[in-house]
């Protein structure tokens, strides 16, 4: 589904990704771990198509198409979702309005019929309920005044509404209390664990990986994948830290 080959990328002329390769097949969940500043969020932004993140070498294909050729909104319509480490606040635009605009734009781009206001509200309410995000919150401006944990739960509500094929979730577990972590983990398993879907889970914590058991674990350090393994690699990292492994 996703094939990243020898990816090099710079931010403000500073090389951050330095030859990163990774393949993700449909039905798989991959965890990416790594020290602060390793380039994990940068990878997410490059995949998402953020301005200012310049690819200098390498390729990324998504369902056989050149991802890097597409605009950010086209990537979303193609089925890519980027969960933000720091979700953005948008004063004056409600979650409902934002997500309905987003979902319908995606559906238009794929040649599907748009959802009516009523159908959309039913969908939003159901997905919000599953993640403990009330309709009142969904009617408030996007992420404005939301606590850190509420913002992350809200990202998962968006995954539920948009139903992407590949979700790149950047520290969606950070800032969650113990109960919320379980709710979000259940959300990932419920929505994204399917034969035609895949997840790239960026995280620092084993506790998420106990709840969403990955098929593969990768260590990203210095802009490259320096080690890959199964779920046991996360336990090893937890015991020994990155110093040994990333060296």
């Amino acid at each position, binding site marked *: 589904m996703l094939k990243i080959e020898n990816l090099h990328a710079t931010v403000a002329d500073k090389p951050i990704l330095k030859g990163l390769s990774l393949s993700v097949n449909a039905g798989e969940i991959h965890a990416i771990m790594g020290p602060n500043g390793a380039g994990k969020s940068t990878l997410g932004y490059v995949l998402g198509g953020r301005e200012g993140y310049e690819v200098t070498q390498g390729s990324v294909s998504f369902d056989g198409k050149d991802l890097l050729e597409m605009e950010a909104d086209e990537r979303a319509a193609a089925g890519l979702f980027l969960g933000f480490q720091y*979700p953005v606040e948008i*004063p004056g635009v409600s979650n409902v309005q934002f997500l309905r*605009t*987003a979902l319908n734009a995606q559906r238009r781009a794929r040649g599907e019929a748009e959802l009516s206001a009523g159908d959309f509200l039913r969908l939003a309410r159901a997905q919000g309920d599953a993640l403990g995000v009330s309709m009142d919150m969904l009617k408030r401006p996007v992420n404005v005044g939301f606590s850190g944990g509420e913002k992350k739960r809200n990202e998962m509500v968006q995954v539920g509404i948009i139903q992407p094929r590949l979700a790149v979730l950047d520290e969606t577990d950070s800032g969650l209390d113990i109960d919320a972590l379980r709710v979000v983990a259940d959300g990932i398993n419920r929505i994204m664990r399917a034969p035609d879907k895949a997840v790239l889970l960026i995280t620092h914590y084993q506790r998420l990986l106990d709840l969403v058991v990955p098929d593969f674990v990768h260590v990203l350090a210095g802009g490259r994948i320096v080690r890959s393994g199964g779920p046991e690699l996360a336990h090893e990292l937890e015991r020994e830290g990155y110093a040994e492994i990333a060296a």
Partner: protein
Amino acid sequence: MTLLDLPSNRDEAWRWSDLSALPEIAARAPAGVVPEALPWIDCAEGPRLLFVDGCLDESRSDLGPVAIGPVEVDPEGHALARLAGRVGWSLRLGRDHAPSGPVQIVHLSTGGADHLAGEIVLDEDAQASIVESFVGEGWSNRLTRIRLARSARLMLARRVMASVGFVSFTDRATVGEGASLVATVLAAGGADTRIDGSILLTGEGAYAEAGGALLARGRQRHDANYVVRHEAPQGTSRQLWRSVADDRAICSVAARVEVARGAQKTDGEQSLKGLLLSRSAQVNAKPELEIFADDVKCAHGATVGELNRDALFYMASRGVPREEARALLTTAFVADAIERVGEEAVREAMHADAEAWFAKTPLPLGEREGPAAEGGGRVRA
């Protein structure tokens, strides 16, 4: 044609205005044709007035309590106000009176220049909502005198939807004890505007709001100059302006609060915000305070910025195309100003006007980008 005596840019109050097109517009002959569709708002039945090139179209109007004739206005030294003359419409409401629904006034200009005065005089506890919509293509120039007696309430909304040309209006208002005036402008057409106003809060506990949203693209110019003067204690005033400039357009807002000696416990707030949608656009914001009382609370803020890039990327990452994201964020930016309008049907119509403006196909990118040095925001304190 009479010779136009117009102010020059050398005058501080007119430095951002461009009146150079007015003599040429004034020389044109109006076509006088009234289109089928006029911007009436679907709301509770109230008086309706249609002015075509400054003349009442009686067949399409329903005056109710509104009269036509000489108007008690004092245009002072203001050049455009003087041109408006002393004849026009007049709404005088006695104690406790209110029209059956919002008073709707449509000003249609079919080509040349038209000038008209108006007055709104509300006696104690009288109430009115008035919405004026400007459409067409010439130059419409208005002077409105407003007098609110004790506890009277006036909601005054202006929709400037004229496709080309020029719209200018000047307000002269006094607000008495416990009375309330909320004046809101939305400029969402293709015409240039010049908006002038002064509000005197003459009674204790008077309330006044003046503000609006100015949307400009191409080489359009909007220019608003408003003064609120507190002359009595415990008055409250709010001036909230939102300017959006795209392409090579320029929006300028000068908003002033004056607090006279003795106007203690005044609460005055100004919020002037500008949004630049292109590098070659310009927004000028000039908040001014002049305070001669010691126990007052006055706050002002002025900012000019661009659309938030993080928000644009966040929206794009959810599949919202760039133009749609820009429109959503820009609509949100002006929403505060339109929210001030109390009459729901009018408010909804104004939100729709703004959305229609944003939905218009933008110019191709090549025309949009200009040298960075030319544009920019300016905040003058």
